[in-house]
């Protein structure tokens, strides 16, 4: 592209044309650093690292705070005013914390609501189970409604200890942990009873309760998209839905071992 200033030497001249006249070319280095960051990255295009580097400039996680403060200080020195960086970075619910799979962002992509509903119609017709129930929320809080409620079915596998048959649940059909817990009970109650029957147990169906508080015989755990095993119930529901990859109902007595040793394969090997 002609006239395009790739060359560092020409850049200061072009910047001089801008009437403001501040000495921003000192910041040139930072820009180049930014580009270098992009070039040196080994991550796939559009992957984690770019997103992270771009997002560290924005207010998100507190653990990035110190690094950000340093950058902010140099930036604000420019204008001669010193704005000290905020002590509390407000958690911004808009920007997704996910780095691998970008979660739903409010108001993005910039299409009108009726077009988003249209898109849902398409997905549902493509054979996925749809959960089109969600109307566009008209209240002022509609920004808080995260998109998953409008997606096609979000099926994850669920297995239960001592039950050989696994099932699948559509997480979009639920809106809370309690709801999910009930569903798990319904799914496995009969199967569990059948298992116990054959192994000489009582055979009557007992409700599966206490999945979330550790008080029941069983506890619900999940594996997230980073492969970590976690107890269900610790994070906000929507965050859970956007990170969960599979579910497992384990015996409460085996919680500590199940969670410490990452994958179930290892667990089986130990047992």
């Amino acid at each position, binding site marked *: *592209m002609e*006239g*395009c200033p790739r060359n560092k030497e020409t850049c200061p001249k*072009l910047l001089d044309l*801008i009437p*403001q006249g501040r000495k*921003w070319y000192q*910041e040139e280095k*930072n*820009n180049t650093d*930014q*580009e270098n960051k*992009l070039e040196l990255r080994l991550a796939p*295009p*559009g992957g984690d690292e*770019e*997103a992270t580097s*771009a997002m560290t*400039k*924005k*207010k998100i996680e507190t653990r990035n705070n110190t690094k950000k403060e340093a950058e902010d200080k140099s*930036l*604000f020195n*420019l204008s001669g*005013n010193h*704005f000290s*960086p*905020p*002590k509390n*970075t*407000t958690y*911004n619910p*808009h*920007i997704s914390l996910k780095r691998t799979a970008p979660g739903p*962002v*409010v*108001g*993005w*992509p*910039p*299409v*009108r*609501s*009726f*077009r*988003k509903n*249209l*898109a849902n*119609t*398409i*997905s549902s*017709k493509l054979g996925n189970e749809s959960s089109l129930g969600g109307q*566009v929320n*008209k*209240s*002022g809080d*509609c*920004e808080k409604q995260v998109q998953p409620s409008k*997606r*096609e079915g979000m099926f994850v596998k669920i297995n239960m200890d001592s039950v050989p048959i696994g099932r699948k649940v559509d997480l979009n059909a639920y809106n809370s942990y309690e709801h999910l817990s009930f569903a798990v009970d319904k799914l496995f109650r009969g199967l569990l009873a059948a298992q116990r029957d054959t192994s000489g147990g009582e055979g009557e169906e007992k409700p599966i309760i206490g999945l979330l508080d550790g008080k029941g015989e069983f506890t619900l755990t999940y594996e997230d998209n980073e492969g970590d095993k976690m107890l269900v119930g610790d994070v906000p529901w929507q965050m859970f839905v956007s990170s969960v990859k599979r579910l497992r109902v384990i015996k409460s007595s085996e919680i500590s071992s199940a969670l410490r040793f990452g994958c179930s394969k290892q667990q089986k090997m130990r047992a």
Partner: protein
Amino acid sequence: MNYFPDEVIEHIFDFIASHKDRNSISLVSKSWHKIERCSRKKVFIGNCYAINPERLIERFPSLRSLTLKGKPHFADFNLVPHEWGGFVHPWIDALAKARVGLEELRLKRMVVSDESLELLSRSFASFKSLVLVSCEGFTTDGLASIAANCRHLRELDLQENEIEDHRGQWLNCFPETSTALTSLNFSCLKGETNLAALERLVARSPNLESLKVNRAVPLDALTRLMSCAPQLVDLGVGSYENEPDQESFVKLMDAIKKCTELRSLSGFSEVAPLCLTAFYPICENLTSLNLSYAAEIQGNHLVRFIQFCKRLQRLWILDSIGDKGLEVVASTCKELQELRVFPSDLHDEEDNDTAVTEIGLVAISAGCPKLHSILYFCKQMTNAALITVAKNCPNFIRFRLCILEPNKPDHTTSQSLDEGFGAIVQACKGLRRLSVSGLLTDKVFLYIGMYAEQLEMLSIAFAGDTDKGMLYVLNGCKKMRKLEIRDSPFGNAALLADVDKYRTMRSLWMSSCEVTLGGCKRLARNAPWLNVEIINENENNDLMERNEEDEREKVDRLYLYRTVVGARKDAPPCVTIL
């Protein structure tokens, strides 16, 4: 001192329609100012809070046509609370009280109530035209008042509004004597339609040129409608999920064949492929085609249809058309001026091979020399493609590219898209509107500031690194009117650098950026002619009660605009005007 009598000057002014030109005229001299304002018939107000109705009426007593816009653009994407404002009632009220001879009202993103519509319908005997775009707050009862009371109604055009449908008989409310309709668009109504009333209305409206029905009008009704209105120029059809039987199909096609004046086709919220083929006879006459609601239709059917549309100037389509489909468009539609490609799959669940990429965009730019407006949603882009597009199409006036994933770089080089967009602004010297996306650093804004001299509206999301980015734009783009920014690291330094710049702009929107409450307060102090609005999600937030500490608090959403009437009084609790 004028060389001609006032009447002559006024007559000369009559030939000048553009608002900008008339605004310029009124600055020439006191005499011209007076003649101009007394003869002005049409007024456009881009921000309803920049002025109030009383001052409007005082200045333009002969007002006949008023256009008003309310909420900021990002309200379309749910970033503005519904109760934010933009109420039309005070305007209608004031105009009615002053007995202005209003004939035409066009509203965009405003809140309209049934009471307002009723008042409107009763207050202006010569009222002819009502156009509502992206408005809300009313029901079909309001429409009934308009239908019943506006004796001279010619145009009722409802585009993409949120209307509560009471499934009433509003269409029945058009009196039998009403025969002046030229345009009727109720495509956004969700409920059932009284087909008999509609057919009678269309039958007694020989001047009807534009008819856009809603989903509930079935195929046989459409056939009858078209049969009694072969003069139609602009048709919006309903939803036709099921394939028609042979007889219906033949009747439909016969009716369509008679509509030799038909130039514009839209609707098709669902359409079985066979239905689409019924329109083949008039394809070659079409200049405007909107198939962007046709969710189910597969790319190949779309392509087959478009192949016949050689005179197309405007095309709105879904990305299910694919790159291959766009290549067909490029080779067929040599008259194409405006293209919009909307996303059909928003969830990125699968690797959608049929969606569009940079290849389709390049093909269009190469094949359509008259292209000047584009809105393009895609999953990936490259600098090389954008550079090629810029070379092929230096005539862009509107260039809006939306890469669905925020911060996505050039997928072949992993670099930012600065160079690509830079090429666009450098080549397209007449560019007035630009939306950028993908991975972008401050550099792209340097280019925009340098080259985009005619740029009036810029939309930024997830872009830039430092305040410099925003400053390049504010300093460089002399004609900037509307700047909207979200999720970008621009803060107080950029916001406050040149306060007087905002005198030349209509508005600035910043959400999820780095500006703080302190910065906004400071701006408000330095610019009393600005309304600086802070919008908070938590309605119970009373910002003014917070202590000094919280000046460092980041502002969730900032919307500022110049105004001559000070802070508005109708702001809801979630909005604080500093």
